[in-house]
């Protein structure tokens, strides 16, 4: 059966006008690869209509996340006022992206986009302006704070230090020099390496490795910053065995507390949408280097849980879906 034709225009209009805030005469660069060109076409058409000067760069499909785009594309990106990146393999953590951000580009990340994301309520219906404020307030609480306690009704109870850490504030309306993964509105912070102690009980999703939505919670015991025990059902066993296979304890490093802040995002098992679900947090495990930490591991996965209560220096900053700062 032929795939139903999906209207990509409303999503492209949101990305260009709301997230990218593209202005007439601005230099817009769309970086894409051959599998994602339909999203690139939709965004570039709308940006063109907005009066921008739009250049589309089609790069070869990268072999792995974080591989540099070719030099001509890196140079084009450094000229951009706004970048959209519908690519199948992430170019977020590249020198090319850093240079573009240093040149004050506003970057709307569209890694591994799908028709489902392009037509999601998370993209089409969210008040991104309002959530940008929430995002910045919560980010400030983390940046100014020294210690975090995270609890959930399922039994998560994890403590860690954040002194000296600067929160990554991923509003979906990036300012010059910022990037936003659309529609994953998120604030994250890297625990002081080695400081995490307690229990993580993930009951929502692990949007990697084909695991997706969890049938049975994954229970992790954390000592001195590392997961020392991981139990639950088949999904827990699968994940633990996968991580064990690298023979690198840093795969078990507690690397990130990420807070989803998109009220319209739904848990689907897809990364860009799941991590933004309001009323969830995720604990990233493995590499923390790309977020501002010290640990480099061969992997980074997120364990997502429902109904968090987050306390910073004894003050509750978020309870379930409510941000209290």
């Amino acid at each position: 059966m032929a795939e139903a034709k999906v209207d990509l225009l409303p999503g492209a209009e949101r990305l260009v006008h709301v997230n990218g805030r593209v202005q007439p005469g601005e230099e817009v660069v769309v970086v894409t690869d051959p599998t994602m060109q339909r999203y690139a076409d939709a965004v570039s058409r709308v940006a063109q209509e907005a009066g921008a000067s739009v250049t589309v760069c089609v790069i070869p499909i990268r072999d792995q996340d974080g591989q540099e785009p070719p030099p001509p594309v890196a140079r084009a990106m450094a000229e951009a006022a706004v970048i959209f990146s519908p690519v199948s393999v992430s170019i977020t953590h590249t020198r090319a992206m850093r240079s573009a951000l240093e040149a004050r580009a506003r970057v709307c990340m569209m890694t591994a986009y799908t028709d489902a994301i392009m037509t999601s309520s998370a993209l089409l219906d969210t008040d991104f302006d309002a959530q940008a404020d929430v995002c910045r307030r919560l980010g400030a609480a983390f940046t100014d704070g020294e210690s975090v306690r995270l609890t959930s009704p399922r039994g998560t109870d994890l403590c860690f230090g954040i002194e000296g850490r600067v929160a990554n504030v991923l509003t979906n309306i990036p300012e010059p020099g910022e990037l936003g993964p659309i529609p994953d509105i998120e604030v994250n912070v890297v625990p002081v390496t080695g400081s995490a102690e307690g229990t993580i009980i993930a009951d929502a999703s692990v949007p990697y490795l084909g695991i997706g939505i969890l049938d049975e919670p994954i229970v992790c015991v954390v000592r001195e910053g590392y997961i020392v025990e991981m139990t639950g059902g088949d999904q827990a066993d699968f994940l633990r065995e996968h991580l064990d296979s690298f023979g690198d304890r840093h795969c078990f490093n507690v690397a990130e507390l990420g807070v989803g802040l998109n009220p319209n995002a739904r848990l689907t098992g897809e990364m860009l949408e799941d991590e933004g679900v309001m009323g969830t947090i995720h604990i990233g495990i493995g590499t923390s280097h790309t977020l501002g930490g010290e640990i480099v591991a061969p992997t980074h996965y997120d364990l997502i849980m429902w109904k968090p209560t987050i306390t910073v220096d004894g003050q509750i900053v978020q309870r379930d879906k409510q941000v209290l700062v």
Partner: protein
Amino acid sequence: MPIAEAVADEAGEMGAVVSIVVPPERSIDNEEPGSAVAAAILGANVVFLPVTLALAHTRAVREAIGSGARVLSMTAFTERMMREGGLFTDFRARQPLCLSLAAMLTRGEQLRLTNPSGTDLSMSLVGVTGNSHACLLDGPGFSAVPNIEANCAPTQGTAEGVFVCDGSIPYYGVGPIREPVTFQISDGFVTDISGGDQADFLKDLLARQEDPWVYNLAQFAFGLNPACTEFTGEMLNDEGVNGTVHIGIGTSANLGGEVTAKTHFDAITQAPTVWIDGEPVLSDGEVLNY
């Protein structure tokens, strides 16, 4: 994009790292493509330009060549041109003739051009360097496939006389000429354009650019591809038709001249006779000696 993709696939198979860059929409041939495209081609070793509107005579391309790029222009390429015609000629065999005519333009001081339709145009070649564009990029430089041409930017402000175009103006949708287009040229600038509908269209288009430099006599060129045999309206076929000459009007900076205008176009005429310093070089389109 099928032509860009075909070239990209072939280059990719050879092991090159290929990026396809689609420039912003532009309104006229040889308008600058924007800073992102300019930066991208500055980072390339080899640049192919299968674009609808020419990029050949832009600052962006000039700077890329300056930084060592080999640039192959493929403006307004068609699927026919990918299958047959000028692209399948023996470029290497034509290179000596092309180099030789370019050297004559460099050495000469005065050029006169006539043809049966009434062309009689003279220009100075003092201080001029001829360019050989034989479609072979052995080093940094520019060529437009399959248009084998030897050309130069005549001494600024010296062209004088009449150029009657009876071949093709493969720009702006004009194409093969139905009624000859007469250019009056004085002190190096076009002062009047007359003829039929095509002349009127061109005259209006240039007037709308509101840029006096779009009338600059920028280029003189010999077309030298024996496999380009008739005018089809395809730019790089028509400019290369063997035994024709063309003048370029507008920007001359990419040919060694000083002028940057809002556009650049070529007008091709047939059966030319050309003298350099009084010596006949071409007679009724036939190369006499080189």
